[in-house]
């Protein structure tokens, strides 16, 4: 910018003052443009009512041993699985196995509630919904790109980088959980 226009310098004006005005004007315009642009970008983020989506409560007596139920939470499927002793044993047995996202089975359920597994039912690869009972580890299998999860929902084989996520939840009583 400095000395950009020799004519003004020749005319007796102080060129640095004029430059200052130019820079200040451009900076103010850029700032104003960014201020206007931000609302146009941020409007695409979740709206107030979307964020205010209530948590869900679920009555566990509806799920028989060895079965699972899929409910919708924040637009995503939520798996609530009533695990059998064999499933729990298989999961604990593999705690020391080589895993991409190492976690013990203990860390994936609430203390003393090993039979209840609550998971967000979207594959951590690209978000498809895995199905139970398939794959090499008798847990979940994602049909989209072939990710295999074990009976604890841990990723064992395939492209997914993470275990099936455990949402924030709490037992309100022995038979009632609140998710979110």
């Amino acid at each position, binding site marked *: 910018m400095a000395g950009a226009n020799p004519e003004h310098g020749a005319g007796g004006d102080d060129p640095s003052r004029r430059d200052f005005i130019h820079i200040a004007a451009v900076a103010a315009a850029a700032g104003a443009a960014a201020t206007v642009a931000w609302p146009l970008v941020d409007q695409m*983020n*979740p709206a107030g009512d*979307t964020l205010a989506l209530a948590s869900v409560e679920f009555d566990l007596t509806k799920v028989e041993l060895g079965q699972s139920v899929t409910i919708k939470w924040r637009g995503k499927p939520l798996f609530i699985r009533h695990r059998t002793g064999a499933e729990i044993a298989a999961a604990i047995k593999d705690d020391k196995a080589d895993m991409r996202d190492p976690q013990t089975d203990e860390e994936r359920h609430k203390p003393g509630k090993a039979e209840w597994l609550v998971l967000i039912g979207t594959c951590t690869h690209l978000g498809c919904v895995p199905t139970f009972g398939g794959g090499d580890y008798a847990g979940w299998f994602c*049909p*989209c790109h072939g990710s295999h999860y074990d009976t604890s929902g841990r990723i064992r084989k395939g*492209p997914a980088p993470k275990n099936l996520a455990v949402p924030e939840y709490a037992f309100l009583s022995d038979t009632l959980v609140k998710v979110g």
Partner: protein
Amino acid sequence: MSGHSNYVPKTGIERWLDARMPIVRLAYDSVVDFPTPKNLNYWYTFGGILALCLGIQLATGIVLAMHYVPHVDHAFASIERIMRDVNYGWLVRYMHANGASMFFIAVYAHMFRGLYYGSYKAPRELLWILGCVIYLLMMATAFMGYVLPWGQMSFHGAVVITNLFGALPVVGESITTWLWGGFAVDNPTLNRFFSLHYLLPFMIAGVVVLHIWALHVVGNNNPTGVEVKSKADTVPFHPYYTVKDGFAIAVFLLMFAAFVFFNPNALGDPVNYVPANPLVTPAHIVPEWYFLPFYAILRAVPDKLMGVLMMFGAIAVLFVLPWLDRSRVKSLRYRPTTRMYFFIFVVACLVLGYCGGKLPDEHVIPGLSTFTLFDADLNSMVWLSRFAAAYYFAYFLVILPWMGLTETPLPQPESISEPVLSHSAATPAGAAASPEKRG
């Protein structure tokens, strides 16, 4: 090629207009008097066909938007209403849905033509890059349009594609949430996709104007790859290429109409006639045929981030192609070794498309048991995709740069006219040797 104009306004209105806004002069110079190499073959008619495709998609799309409802509870039903109740709605929708496929058939023919005849080389680098931008916009538009009917494939396709951005480190999750407008693909996502699906075609039209502008500065390439040397190498665009393009368009429309009227769902997935259910993913989820090669590349890589980067890289590499191919000879007619690699490249693209439509663990040769290499059976679609994807990248990043340094090309003709004239001189005397009829 540009600058000089032979337009002479004839009527008073034309003279009045020409002094104020010379739009008739622009049209005359662009599509009537524009000097065009006289040896363009039918591979060069896809530009005109593509312009028509864009026009058809715009016209049918604007009509469909008058009846479509962009809401998760009504979108699917509104499409069925268009199909059953709206007057000629079935026709307009089938034209639009098949029109997308026709658009991609034409654009792939156009791109392979450019690759074969070296149309991306100096001075046409910018012309090529603008074409790549159009292709990218077409892909975004087609993807968002496919989401609108809110069927099972629409929904889960949107889930998979938006989750691709989640592979980016640190910012991935914020970006997907921002794209969705929530915590999953839902009504806000459908709404914005509709808005953008309406906007992007007009952006395509804008870049098409730039594409044609760039074309008219440097002029057409041609099958010999030799630049125009004199007026004897060219013919005026009208009537020579208006008629040639017109004939090609008529043939193309025959194929288009055959799909629309006799097999309108042949290119689509029947699962998309099942309404979207966020709780159940279809057993076999695939994109539309025109995305299958890229989908195969995505699945070929066992790592999530690398898979996404490779898939986008497959398109990004096209943008830098003018600087990867170092050969000064444009047309592969005169580069026999590279030509052989080019045809293998075409096969690799087709193989990728084939693999993208199959399950990754499926055997390529049924019944043949082989051994497991790293994480999958060697006789599986995922390994076939890996070989084809490796060739895809090797063609651009290794073969073309290497061939530019080492290949000895065949002698090129002195000019566009020369091979025609020398050929006609060799024909027996008395034969009607009129080279201008061979264009």
